[in-house]
């Protein structure tokens, strides 16, 4: 970092070291970190989980846990009076640091669900900041809080003031959190993964809001994230951290156009993006060799197998939700989680299913695995060995179905039993189905371990001793144990870091090729689905609004919702910034903004065929030209 004019730095971290006392020693998590934040500018701190970026942000506010030991300097220079303070010299939770917190520097957190207290109203929690830092009456505080709530985009601030956090959606909660952080107009905002837990269209809205407010209040921001796309759209300067050490720092232009350090280059190559050529592979930081030689006698295509492996027709699932609680009238409203979904999965292809939270994509996967019983519709599985009606299969037929369809789960931590060794986990499916003797099972388990690139010495370990990526590989191996034809992958990489994500995606791709597997790949991340899938289906509110081969859906989307999804994705590319103005002007992420040919008005909706396997949910009589002219 050259050419810094230190006297203008709002925040200047020098030679920061943070260590935690552990049983029998100290664990150094941050070593010799230098970084700065200029007044009114955004510095992004980029790194993967465990790199120490959150710990640094906590040390800036002095809210590290008791067990942490910090060395170095954290100089905070308030632009209002030009006074510099070394945060680390202040006493923990003393009056000086408390006067800074919330007032001159504020923080928003990753999880808007848990970072607000569920027992206090939104207004109470926001106006509390005013009560701490300003001399004001209750009415003044309420007025200012409502003003701030309006500023962050609440339509009815006075109503929101008296609501509880759990009555708000995730995006709205994050807005409330932002209001809380900004109500005292701090000089520095620390945003710790502010949009990671949010859907992509909401993420775009929150990013826009943050940028807007940052300009309006002329506030500096330390943005902590792992998402290079977010960084490209928000940051002025970038600092890349890996294992507690700064790898690279500079302006966003320098970093993105000429990455120097191998780690940053690797990180950039590991992110799937939309300009990938067909067949282009992601470069994982640590590639996993796939060796399925010993797993099965290679592909065994069944003779005369039908082209369609799984056929789903008119699935409907309705949940009853009690609308009001204990103290009002009790009426049940019905929510259609899945509302008449039909699609086919062809043998050997990967069908991507994209949707935001609440769109019903997970319900679909649960119905396919028979974990949820739908209210109507049919699912037929046919691999050439006889048709199986998935929803009606019982007894032996159901057991047989289980060997042909398996699932890879989202959360690699909770989907593996912590009380079973890897060997137990992998051989359990074989035991349940009574396949082979113990010698055969062990051989099979070893072959599975080899196939996912894990060392056989790990067989007797428990899941907790593996990293997230390794655990997800074990989850994949478990799903493969019975030699299924169809794998349902429900958000298999959304809990993983970027570099590990590339590794898992490549592994899944390789396995598909080698074993001739068919995938239903569910994700909220369009770029990931684009990398994996041959065809992509987009879900909104329980319906598939558009389904097409991946080149078509990405280059030539027709449905307004698909367009808004695509427009909201932040690219890790400085030449393709998010167009916040257009996003705001044509926000089609919800139904009210669609043209009548898509909402249907009073008429029913049906998939309209645009040719080439491109179907769009539209009014029954709408013609192709009308749809495209939107």
């Amino acid at each position: 970092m050259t050419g810094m004019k230190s006297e203008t730095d709002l925040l200047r971290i020098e030679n920061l070291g943070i260590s935690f006392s552990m049983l029998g020693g100290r664990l150094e998590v941050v070593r010799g970190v230098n970084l700065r934040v200029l007044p009114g500018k955004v510095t992004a701190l980029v790194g993967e989980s465990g790199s120490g970026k959150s710990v640094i942000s906590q040390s800036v506010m002095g809210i590290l846990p008791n067990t942490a030991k910090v060395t170095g300097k954290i100089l905070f220079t308030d632009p209002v009076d030009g006074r510099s303070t070394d945060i680390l010299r202040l006493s923990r939770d003393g009056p000086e640091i408390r006067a800074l917190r919330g007032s001159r520097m504020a923080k928003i957190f990753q999880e808007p669900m848990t970072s607000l207290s569920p027992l206090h109203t939104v207004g109470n929690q926001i106006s509390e900041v005013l009560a701490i830092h300003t001399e004001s009456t209750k009415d003044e505080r309420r007025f200012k809080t409502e003003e701030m709530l309006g500023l962050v985009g609440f339509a009815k601030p006075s109503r929101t003031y008296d609501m509880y956090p759990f009555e708000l959606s995730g995006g709205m909660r994050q807005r409330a959190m932002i209001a809380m952080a900004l109500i005292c107009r701090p000089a520095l905002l620390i945003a710790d993964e502010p949009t990671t837990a949010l859907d992509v269209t909401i993420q775009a809205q929150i990013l826009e809001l943050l940028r807007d407010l940052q300009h309006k209040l002329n506030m500096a921001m330390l943005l902590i994230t792992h998402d290079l796309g977010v960084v490209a759209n928000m940051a002025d300067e970038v600092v890349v951290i890996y294992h507690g050490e700064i790898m690279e720092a500079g302006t966003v232009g320098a970093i993105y156009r000429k990455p120097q350090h191998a780690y940053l280059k690797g990180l950039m190559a590991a992110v799937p993006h939309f300009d990938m050529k067909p067949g282009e592979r992601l470069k994982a930081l640590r590639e996993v060799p796939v060796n399925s030689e010993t797993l099965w006698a290679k592909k065994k295509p069944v003779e005369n197998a039908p082209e369609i492996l799984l056929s789903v027709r008119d699935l409907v699932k309705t949940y009853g939700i009690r609308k009001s609680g204990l103290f009002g009238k009790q009426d049940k409203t019905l929510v259609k989680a899945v509302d008449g979904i039909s699609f086919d999965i062809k043998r050997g292809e990967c069908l991507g299913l994209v949707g935001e939270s609440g769109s019903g994509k997970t319900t679909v996967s649960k119905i396919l695995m028979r974990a949820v019983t739908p209210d109507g519709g049919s699912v037929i599985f046919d691999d050439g060995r006889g048709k199986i009606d998935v929803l009606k299969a019982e007894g032996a037929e159901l057991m047989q179905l289980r060997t042909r369809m398996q699932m890879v789960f989202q959360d690699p931590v909770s989907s593996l039993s912590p009380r079973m060794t890897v060997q137990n986990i992998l051989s359990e499916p074989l035991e349940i189905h009574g396949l082979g003797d113990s010698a055969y099972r062990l051989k099979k388990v070893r072959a599975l371990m080899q196939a996912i690139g894990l060392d056989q010495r790990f067989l007797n370990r428990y899941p907790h001793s593996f990293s997230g990526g390794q655990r997800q590989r074990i989850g994949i191996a478990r799903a493969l144990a019975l030699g299924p034809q169809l794998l349902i992958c429900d958000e298999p990489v959304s809990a993983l870091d970027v570099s590990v994500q590339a590794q898992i995606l490549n592994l899944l791709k390789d396995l598909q090729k080698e074993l001739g597997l068919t995938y239903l790949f569910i994700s909220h991340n369009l770029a990931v689905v684009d990398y994996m899938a041959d065809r992509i289906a987009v879900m909104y509110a329980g319906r598939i609004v558009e389904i097409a081969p991946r080149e078509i859906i990405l280059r030539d989307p027709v449905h307004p919702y698909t367009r808004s999804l695509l427009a909201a994705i932040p690219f890790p590319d400085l030449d393709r910034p998010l167009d916040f103005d257009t996003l705001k002007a044509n926000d089609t992420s919800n139904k009210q903004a669609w043209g009548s040919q898509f909402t249907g008005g009073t008429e029913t909706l049906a998939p309209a065929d645009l040719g080439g396997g491109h179907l769009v949910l539209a009014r029954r009589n709408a013609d192709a030209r009308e749809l495209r002219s939107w």
Partner: protein
Amino acid sequence: MLRYILWRIAAMIPTLLVISALVFTIIELPPGNFFESQIAELRAQGETVNLQEIEELRHQYGFDRPPVLRYFHWLGGMLQGDFGYSFEYQLPVSEVVGDRLWLTILVSFVTILFTWLIAFPIGMYSATHQYSWSDYGLTFLGLIGIAIPNFMLALILMYFANIWFGTSIGHLMDQQYLNEPMSWEKARSILSHLWIPVIIVGTAGTAGMIRRLRANLLDELQKQYVMTARAKGLHPFRTLVKYPLRMALNFFVSDIGSILPSIISGAEITAIVLSLETTGPMLIKALQSQDMYLAGSFLMFLAFLTVIGVLISDIALAFLDPRIRLQGRSTK
């Protein structure tokens, strides 16, 4: 809210009816009844039995009628406040229990207050100073409190109180006030005796509550919203009281459901050791001597308190926790 409470109270009726039927069946289960055993006892002593008188009593209490009718008789009596007749004490049940009930409630409430007053500050301190020497020390004391049986503590305290203070701490008051009407002197005597059973009964409860409060608070202290509050610049103590402590209160409120019945039946052994004039020892004696109506009334009363206690804690929880109150109105 009112609707909910009314609905809950209505739901209590069938619950209590089922319980009363169960209680009555249990009372009836042992062969024979009090009169038959009394007749046998009198005859064994060689006394003449006034069969006429006993027959009258039998008739009065409906023992010549089938059990089903007697059940309804008992039930109807309870509804009118007549809890039956204690054969052992030869008095109506309500008179037998009378004074003892108030003394029991006094002892129990003071004990509960004592528990809360001690447990809350210690629990909060322990949780915020986890793994410090003071935490270990308090934890150790708490574990001792849990581990020592109450009756043993009672014996030890009785001995030392007698030696050091010269108080004879059997009973809840000095001997001379037993069976006396309430007076200022009697009240003073009760208060001077009260602290020993309170300490003895309260120790285990306090220790247990410290442990639970500490565990609950430790869970809550890890939560993100505590970090949020600190990042606002809130004073650490205000943070503790406003956020994690408030959340940790839920378990505490749910406890009310079990506290109410234990007021009546709790700490029997201590009460027997200290010969306290509370209802605990009486319940045990009634069950031992098959004094049917006395035991039955106790059991019914316990059931009633349990149901009421659960209702109170549910309503209190709904008041305290908006998630319970507004459940399902989420707009997510």
